[in-house]
């Protein structure tokens, strides 16, 4: 194992502008051009990703706020995180715990 390497961690991209709205959050990745909204558990995920998190860590945070089966939450999170990366709102990197 390479020294300093660790599990993949996800965090909000610095290159976003965003605001809370009545029902969620509206996000604009400034290098990608398109707004999108997060609602419900998406808002909680956005708050969780203020700090770098692995999928398991993010899932644990969400489970502390919402009911759900851990395996199902982890399974649901992975495609959501990849979508947020694709939109430019989240970045991912391998590294040790911050």
């Amino acid at each position: 194992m390479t020294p300093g390497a660790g599990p993949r961690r996800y965090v909000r991209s610095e290159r976003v502008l965003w605001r809370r709205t009545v029902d969620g959050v509206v996000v604009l990745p400034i290098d990608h051009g398109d707004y999108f909204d997060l609602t419900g558990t998406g808002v909680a995920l956005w708050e969780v990703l203020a700090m770098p998190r692995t999928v398991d860590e993010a899932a644990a945070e969400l489970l502390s706020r919402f009911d759900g089966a851990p395996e199902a939450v982890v399974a649901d999170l992975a495609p959501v995180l990849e979508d947020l990366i694709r939109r430019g709102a989240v970045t991912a990197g391998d590294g040790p715990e911050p």
Partner: protein
Amino acid sequence: MSWPWPELARAVAGHGLPQAGVALPVGAPDDPAWDQLCRWAVAQRLSGLLAAAVVDGALDVDDDRRAQVARMHRSAMVGAIALERAMLRAVDVLVPVGIDYRVLKGTAVAHLDYADPSLRSYGDVDLLVRSEDLDAAIAALEGVGHVRRFPEPRPGFQRRFGKGNCLVTPEKMEIDLHRSLAMGPFGLTIVLDDLWARRSTFVLAGVEVPALALEERFLHACIHAALGDPIPRLSPLRDVAQMLLAPGLDGEKVRELSATWRIDAVVARAVGLAGGAFELPSGAHPLLEWARRFEPAARDRRSLRVYTDPGQTYAAKSFAALRAIPGIASKVAYLRALLFPARSYVAGRHAGRLRRWGRGLAQVLRPRLRP
């Protein structure tokens, strides 16, 4: 239930303000009151505070009305972050050519002075640059497709005497480039170097963005609230109150700068209006008691009138500014630019130079002839 209008507007504008004596009425408003409230919140850029009042449960609304407020607020927030992106793009043009800047008004206040920037919406971007950089800043932004909204009377006029200039981005958003914080007489007495002596910062999209320091920012809010509109708007008054009640506002520093800039009358007016609008107790801050006792000098009363009289005009402010311009040579240059402006300035605005003079003279004399 019909709600009394001015009280309702002040209560929404004052929502969340500590020590405010205004409170939202209990119960659901009738349809006319609700419709008026929504139109007013959009026009006055107070949808953030209206949304907060709904989310906090301070306003009794059904699902339909909540959805309506949610739509209004989201629209305002999309506008705000679009403006922030435009601002960052402008900064990306200015910084590489050595132009220093400060973010002013809505963008800065939203991030620095409110608990959450979603409480404060705004309709344009305001950037301060040094006077000597104004022309270069405009040229740099014109080079990337920004368009100057108004020509200046003569080349160099804004850099020397004006507040600044407005540019429109390729996306049709407005960026106000300032060299001072006001036009007219009170804008010319501000010691511009004071605006650059200190700063606050906040982070936008990973970029550390400079703004005025708190006391200077508070003074700018006072200028905007007291002079920006003949009928003071509640959004700038809320900014004044918000910063007034924030821990850390140094009243002595405010007084020192206000006196140096010769804008005591402006600050007293703004603080008095904010205190009255939100029914703040005079003990909430020493500046409230100071403003209550303040008596403006006759000269300052005359200067205030050119901003606060209904029908206040550019010509009247411009003439009143003459007193504040130091030195005969500068006064002559100022008058020459206004009386004999470039053709591009007159074209499209007036039928000709003589017609323009007549109209300007009427605007200058009107307040003097008023009984």
